């Protein structure tokens, strides 16, 4: 038997499904999908998905590890929860999509430069810094993610909005120098570190 054939044969084994069940948030529910496709049709960003959630579930069962974990589809999730409330099998699809994206991201398999992946990373880093989100630095970092020139261009294009928010007292330029934050930052960080440590241990990232 050739290697290619072996791969094809292995493909439909449950291995990748087991990996997902073990390591992905709510991954144990993937097997419950009955391929009705209501999730695929419910997503506001549906047309942007290369693979719909229901198809991803089938791909997981079919062992298509690289295609799933390398896909940008999960990053199209707006967390609107439409799929989840309509799923006749009550799969927590939103959470599974988040979980798959997180897993792919952590494994480094998620597409590089995927804007939502980058923004989401930025967001988390921003919030853990002070315990609360700094909207200004988050926004600026986001616009400048592609380098200085692109950033200035994008920020300029949005400057009327920024100015408007400023005038409406809904953006504080002083936030750039610090801004809101939790007082017990040390404790906050300790909690996150501990939580991360536990989770990483369970999902095999600690090693």
């Amino acid at each position: 038997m050739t290697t290619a054939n072996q791969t094809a044969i292995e493909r439909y084994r449950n291995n990748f499904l087991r990996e997902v069940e073990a390591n992905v948030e709510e991954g144990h529910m993937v097997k419950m999908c009955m391929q009705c496709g209501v999730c695929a049709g419910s997503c506001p960003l549906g047309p942007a998905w290369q693979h719909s959630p229901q198809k991803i579930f089938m791909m997981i069962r079919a062992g298509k590890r690289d295609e799933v974990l390398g896909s940008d589809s999960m990053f199209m999730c707006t967390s609107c929860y439409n799929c989840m409330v309509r799923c006749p099998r009550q799969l927590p699809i939103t959470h599974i999509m988040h979980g798959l994206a997180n897993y792919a991201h952590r494994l480094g398999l998620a597409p590089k430069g995927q804007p939502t992946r980058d923004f989401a990373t930025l967001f988390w880093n921003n919030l853990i810094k002070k315990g609360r989100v700094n909207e200004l630095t988050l926004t600026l970092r986001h616009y400048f993610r592609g380098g200085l020139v692109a950033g200035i261009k994008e920020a300029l294009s949005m400057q009327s909005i920024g100015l408007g928010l400023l005038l409406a007292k809904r953006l504080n330029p002083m936030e750039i120098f610090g801004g809101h934050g939790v007082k017990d930052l040390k404790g906050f960080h300790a909690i996150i570190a501990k939580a991360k440590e536990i989770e990483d241990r369970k999902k095999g990232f600690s090693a």
Partner: protein
Amino acid sequence: MADNKYAAYICSGCGIGDAMKVGQLENIAKKEGKMAIVKSHPFLCNAEGVQTIKDDIANEAVTHVCIAACSRRAKTEAFQFDGVAVSRANLREGVLWVVAAGKDHDEVRQEMAADYIRMGCAELKKMTQPAGNRKEGSSKRILVVGGGMSGMTAALEIAAAGYEAVIVEKTGALGGMAAQLWKRQPFKEPYSAAQEVGVGETAAKIAANPLIKVHLNSTIAETSGAPGRFLIKIAQESGAVSEESVGAIVQATGFTPYDVAKLPKLGGGQPNVVDQAGLEALAKTANGGAIKRADGKEVKSVVFVQCAGQRDETGTHLSYCSGHCCGTSIKQATYFKDQNPEIDTVVMYQDLRMPGMGEDFYRSAQERGVIFTKGKASKVSGGDSCAVTFKDLILDEENTIAADLVVLATGQVPNAGVDLEAWNPVVTAAEGGDEAAKVQRDAMRTTSVLKLNYRQGPDVPQFKHGFADSHFICFPYETRRTGIYAAGPVRRPMDILQATDDATGAALKAIQAVENAALGRAAHPRSGDLSFPKARLEGCTQCKRCTVECPFGAIDEDEKRFPVFNEERCRRCGTCMGACPVRVISFENYSCDTVGSQVKAVEIPDEDEEKPRVLVLACENDAYPALDMAGLARLNYSAFVRIIPVRCLGSVNTIWITDALNAGYDGVMMMGCKKGDEYQCHFVKGSELAHYRMSKIGDTLKQLGLEPERVQTQEVAITDNTRVVKLINDYVAELDKLGPSPMKGFG
């Protein structure tokens, strides 16, 4: 009979009295109808009106009553009198409500009503109240053929109702296919795990039940007789023959799995490719431990290929779905998962069919990690490592999947015995002296399950795909062999749960059959009817039409080829009466005369009156109700028609048609049920036979010098209340164009 006394009661209620001259109708009943008593009443169906009739029955010794009021379908209970023959003249739905209102129509309305009075009286004169109750069949024991789950259930249910049951089982033990199962699909909540089959307990209950007798290693050598008096010859494997008298039969002969050898493309016959029964055997051997293949290797991965040799549109394999196989494969997948969750189990399906609560079982298998793949397998190869090549219908790609074992979900093939459609031409050829056909006939006979000695063949007629099912949705047990009821997978593909329910239903029908037989009553759909066909054999020409055409195989032939009527098998449809060219067959209350006299009672106006007369013979099951409902909706049709309800178009004897045409009717229209594959006829072939017979009437018409259009046969559904009106009116218009019948004035 000298004792008969005839009375007619005319109701003037519901507006009849306003629209018709009731006095004149009374006179007609008296003078032309020769009724001894004629009364009219403003509200005949109320208690007082009915009492008038009852009083006359009691005090005046009235034996025959003509009710001229509403349709026979209305106030039926009010106008039932024990031991008294009743005819109904339909003045309300048949005249008042369908003839256009207003003075312009007074004359034709009155003529129509008058004719219905004449017809009601004429019919009554020819009727006798059926005596019934011949008490020929008095056995209330019930034979159950087959000792599988269906048969065992039927026997236990029969016994639980207090009746005796006799089981004939061809193998050496009870249990059938169910005994070969490791477990069965869950049949009550929580529908999450396979359950014990329970064959042992059921068989033990049967052994302990004094009302149940079991013949093992036995088959039926001959079945003769009729409900209430079947005589069964039972052949034992040893060669001994015993006899049992029974009143009814439940046929629970089950199924055989479709032969996997017919599926070489799907690996049938190759090592480590088994059917579902094969997997049950492996699971039984494993007895809860790891399931091993025939070569002793523990199975670590298994693929179930659904619809193997089923739902086949090429005509090569089974075209139907066997219903149970999705659930069976799910159950079998749980055998593996419950023993070792690490075993890869894939169910490859096209449509996963788990109706009702089965959905819960499907879910429970998914929870266990059984993988469901919507795909169509194109090739399976067996061997040490099996491979299934398939099209993944979701991912839209060709793929191959490896497994230690492949299970093919093949279908159920019913054990229904001889297919009569194939049997009959062989027998005809054999009777014609064809020696090869004789050999073939005898060979076929050995494959028979019931070995009925009926004129029409040794087994019950099959419906579709060889299953001994009913054609009727509302009446799943409406069989074509009275007193014989199929149950379980021989009737229809099914699982154990449905089969046990089915067996219980069939048990009831068998009990009902023995009770009816003992009272001389008809079974469905004319249940309770006490009439039965009588033949004046001295006039019989041994033409065999009645024995061939009886839809229920009720009529055998004696050595001289005279018909032998088995009343308990008869369903009282009258097809034999319609078939008989010499009109020697009749029922006490329904005969060539009861209808013929009505045909003749109608007054045929002269040609110059321009009042055509059209006879409508309407099947009482669908067409007559449709006509009634046209009345209920106050739809108008021509007042030139005269409608006679018949039991079935199959009972229509051509003499009625020729009599009508001879009498000067301008046309005859027959309204019957739908014929063909999806027939609606409650007596199976009545409508079809009528169409056939009428197609042959052309010569007669020619002899009379009449146009073929003067006789029409229509298929009518019960919902056709607007259509029947159109049919009638169009037909009257067509006849009008044709001009009056040249026979007028010769009658």
